[in-house]
């Protein structure tokens, strides 16, 4: 340190020091630029992010609307329940969290992970439902660990309940958790993950109405999701109850009649189209859909050969069989192929286009006019009509009367059936139409397909002497407005040239069928003037049926009955279909009789 007293030349050193200083000054400029960019240019973006951090919006679900029968009996209601959800971001160690949750709630680890994995694409901080319908003990268990496990939260929610179990389940429908695909559709844009939505039946049809309006809770939260203040609270609004035309007692009766069978029953009011009962059997337990099926139970329901999930009344497709003879009669009268007095001879068998066709009555019915033909459901008579009419004309008339198209009932998933035409056959089967097929169609066989509801609506159309109705479950006079007027309007007869008298002629045959020892005699009730028609439809082709008959093997047919009462002032239509039920007169007609009787007891004695 001898240089103490000497000024040494430090200029070289200081020049180099200056250079680094300039570099640092430049870095300060860069720094100011980036803060300006972040705080001034990108301010809005970060402001929004900060608000999103700070504000938590919780949906307070509105309880779904109730569903009532026509007398006010509650068919669907809500009860309180708790569920627990996982917020993935609130745990530092998701794996460990899974293990504790699995232990805490007794859920298998794999099942839990699978359930959460389903929601992988969901934005962060969304609660992912882990377990619904917690018991009180489970609620306490989770709540006691609120501080150790901030990732697990408890939410109270109204739970749907069907107090009568499988009662009218195909009408009411059921709820199921919304799928990720549905969540992306505009219909469900306001819904949340884990929400239950109506999947079938009225629950699905009136979903937008039933959900009411959800409430909203806007809170200030800290980084742990703890509430620090409240910004806004909007109470949820429940939708008014859904009032149905369905009659609890009739529906119950219809279901009990079907018990042990597979089939469908429809009871409706032909004056308005109000559906009083709509039953399909077998059924299932809708409350299960909320609790979630175990995988085995779900497989059992889906793979059940008896298809309990299907609503046979609106989705089951069957040959109409002899029921279609009513349609044929109307068509033939309308097209002036016959008059009421036109008669044909039934000898039990007839050869048409070189093929033998037989009547169900082996000895034949002798000479019959239209009324007797309907009363006895004579095949030969209608074969004769089939021979005299073109398939195109039959198809056009059948469609005009409502077959091959939706009835318009307020239930999702209705099927429209099939009215075959040569064009249809060409397109589908790549083959020409044979005249012999027209003969089959004339007695309601062949490719013709209808739903039980179409038959009921058709029956109402006949009962009303040519005025169509739209079957509907909702009582439109109450909270929700919906128009159930038939698009064909009141001038249907005028536009189609169909004569009112034609209906009277067909109805005369139907009346005799029930009240004059016809095929429908098993449905007769003294003094109620029931008019009806039976049908027994082959479930296999005519040829194989005859072959089996020769070998004395009985093939059970589907059993139909459709009718209305009273004859002159119709107020109720009953349609019954029993799969493999045998003859319509033997199986379906007695069931229909019980319903007519019960209806009379409920609605006429009480008057």
């Amino acid at each position, binding site marked *: *340190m001898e*240089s*103490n*007293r000497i*000024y*040494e030349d*430090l200029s*070289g*050193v*200081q020049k*180099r*020091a*200056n*250079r*680094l*200083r300039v570099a*640092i000054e430049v*870095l*300060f400029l860069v*720094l*100011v630029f*980036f*803060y*300006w960019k*972040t*705080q*001034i240019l*990108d*301010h809005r*973006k*970060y*402001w929004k*992010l*900060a*608000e999103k*951090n*700070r504000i938590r919006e919780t949906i307070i679900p509105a309880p779904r609307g109730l569903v009532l029968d026509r007398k006010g009996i509650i068919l669907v209601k809500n009860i309180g329940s708790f569920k627990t959800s996982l917020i993935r*971001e609130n745990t530092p160690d998701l794996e460990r969290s899974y293990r504790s949750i699995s232990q805490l709630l007794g859920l298998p680890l794999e099942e839990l992970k699978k359930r959460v994995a389903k929601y992988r694409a969901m934005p*962060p901080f969304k609660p992912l439902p882990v377990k619904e319908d917690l018991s009180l003990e489970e609620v306490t268990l989770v709540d006691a660990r609120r501080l150790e496990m901030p990732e697990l939260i408890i939410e109270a929610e109204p739970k749907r309940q069907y107090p009568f179990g499988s009662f009218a389940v195909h009408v009411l429908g059921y709820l199921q958790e919304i799928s990720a695909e549905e969540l992306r559709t505009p219909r469900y844009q306001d819904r949340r993950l884990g929400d239950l939505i109506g999947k079938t039946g009225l629950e699905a049809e009136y979903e937008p109405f039933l959900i009411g309006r959800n409430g909203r809770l806007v809170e*200030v*939260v*800290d*980084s*742990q999701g703890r509430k*620090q203040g409240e910004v806004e609270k909007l109470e949820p609004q429940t939708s008014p109850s859904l009032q149905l035309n369905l009659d609890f007692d009739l529906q119950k009766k219809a279901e009990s009649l079907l018990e042990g069978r597979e089939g469908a029953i429809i009871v409706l009011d032909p004056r308005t189209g109000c559906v009083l009962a709509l039953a399909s059997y077998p059924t299932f337990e809708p409350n299960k859909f909320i609790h979630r099926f175990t995988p085995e139970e779900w497989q059992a329901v889906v793979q059940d050969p008896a298809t309990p999930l299907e609503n046979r009344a609106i989705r089951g497709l069957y040959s109409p069989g002899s029921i279609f003879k009513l349609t044929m009669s109307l068509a033939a009268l309308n097209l002036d192929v016959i008059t009421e007095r036109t008669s044909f001879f039934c000898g039990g068998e007839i050869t048409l286009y070189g093929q033998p066709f037989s009547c169900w009555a082996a000895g034949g019915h002798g000479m019959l006019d239209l009324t007797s033909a309907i009363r006895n459901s004579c095949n030969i008579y209608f074969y004769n009509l089939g021979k005299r009419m073109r398939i195109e004309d039959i198809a056009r008339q059948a469609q005009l009367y409502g077959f091959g198209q939706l009835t318009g009932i307020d239930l999702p998933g209705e099927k429209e059936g099939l009215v075959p035409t040569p064009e249809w056959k060409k397109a589908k089967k790549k083959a020409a139409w044979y005249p012999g097929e027209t003969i089959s169609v004339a007695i309601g066989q062949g490719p013709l397909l209808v739903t039980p509801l179409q038959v009921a609506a058709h029956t109402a159309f006949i009962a009303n002497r040519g005025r169509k109705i739209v079957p509907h479950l909702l009582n439109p006079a109450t909270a929700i407005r919906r128009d159930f007027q038939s698009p064909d309007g009141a001038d249907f007869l005028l536009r189609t040239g169909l004569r009112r008298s034609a209906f009277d002629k067909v109805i005369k045959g139907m009346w005799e069928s029930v009240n004059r020892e016809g095929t429908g005699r098993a449905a007769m009730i003294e003094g109620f003037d029931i008019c009806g028609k039976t049908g027994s439809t082959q479930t296999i082709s005519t040829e194989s049926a005859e072959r089996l008959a020769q070998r004395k093997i009985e093939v059970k047919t589907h059993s139909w009955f459709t009718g209305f009462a009273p004859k002159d002032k119709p107020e109720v239509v009953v349609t019954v279909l029993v799969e493999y039920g045998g003859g319509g007169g033997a199986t379906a007609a007695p069931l229909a009789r019980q319903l007519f009787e019960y209806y009379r007891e409920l609605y006429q004695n009480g008057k």
Partner: protein
Amino acid sequence: MIDRRLLSEIDWILVGLLLLNSALGCFLIYSASSQGPGDPYLRQAAFILISLVGLFLAFSLDYKILVAYSPYFYFLGILALAGLLLWGRLIAGTKSWIRLASFGLQPSELMRVFLILLLARLFADFRRTHLSVGMLLLSGGAVGLPLVLVVLQPDLGTAASYLPLLLAVFVLAGITRRQVALLLILALVLGVVGWSFFLTNYQKNRLVTLILPGHDPQGAGYQIQQSKIAIGSGGLLGKGFKQGSQSQLNFLPARHTDFIFSVLGEEFGFIGVLAVILSYFFLLLRLFQAVGLSRDRPGVYIVFQVAVLLSFQFLVNVFMVIGLFPVTGIPLPLLSSGGSSLLASYLCLGLVLNVRMRRFVNI
């Protein structure tokens, strides 16, 4: 030992800037920690008082004497660091603390001051125009030893803060381009080796986050993301004192230490940021000015090292909180809460005052 005439040569402007920034720090810590337990701002005020004593000690004794004794300081520091590794207790995941009553002392912070003095001594008689390989290795070794000891603690942030000292002396001694290239290659090799063998996943994550800020927003990127949100949402004027939702609702991590600047950005906006940057900038300008005023070579080395060190720490921290530098754990000198770091900064500035006030021969 201290003359009245010397006292009049004290750079009061520098002292003023120093106190201003310290007070600002205290104020920000107050706002940042109002939700948490304890009163970190009171502790910080106590640290400032203690550090002022250190500051006084650092400028009262002639720096030439300090430089002369620097090898002993250095040796003591090395002993302390080695001892910590052998006997230190793990606190917050590192062995970097010596506990003194309720305060903790980090020898690694004080080591920086000793290094400044030692490097000044090593280069005191180095008059060549270019850095010699011998001096490069010698100074590199002198810094490398404590650096390795601190890395082993492990405290990467403090270890990294030794590097600007080397940068400063190399620049002053006239490092050649070839040496720069060689050092870069060496750094690259060390980097690759370090990445594959020594860095923990946690540290790797932080580097990856720098390059891909959006990746893993709940993990390593969370801090940076929340810090950027805090700063950006502050806008021009800020949300106001104690009104920052990011800071007050706990979204901002380490908000009274490493991320104190984010609190400033959120609550006082661009205006506040600009004000603090400017006050810091003037402080640094004052330091660089003192480089030109130094009488001798050790003085220049001391002042320049301090200036580069503070610039480095400030820039790294402030670039870090808006996501332009990885989260290294380097606090904001003078502003962040923390006693050892504050004391070290005061000692450094004391040395600068020391050199400056003794700039005239024969005083």
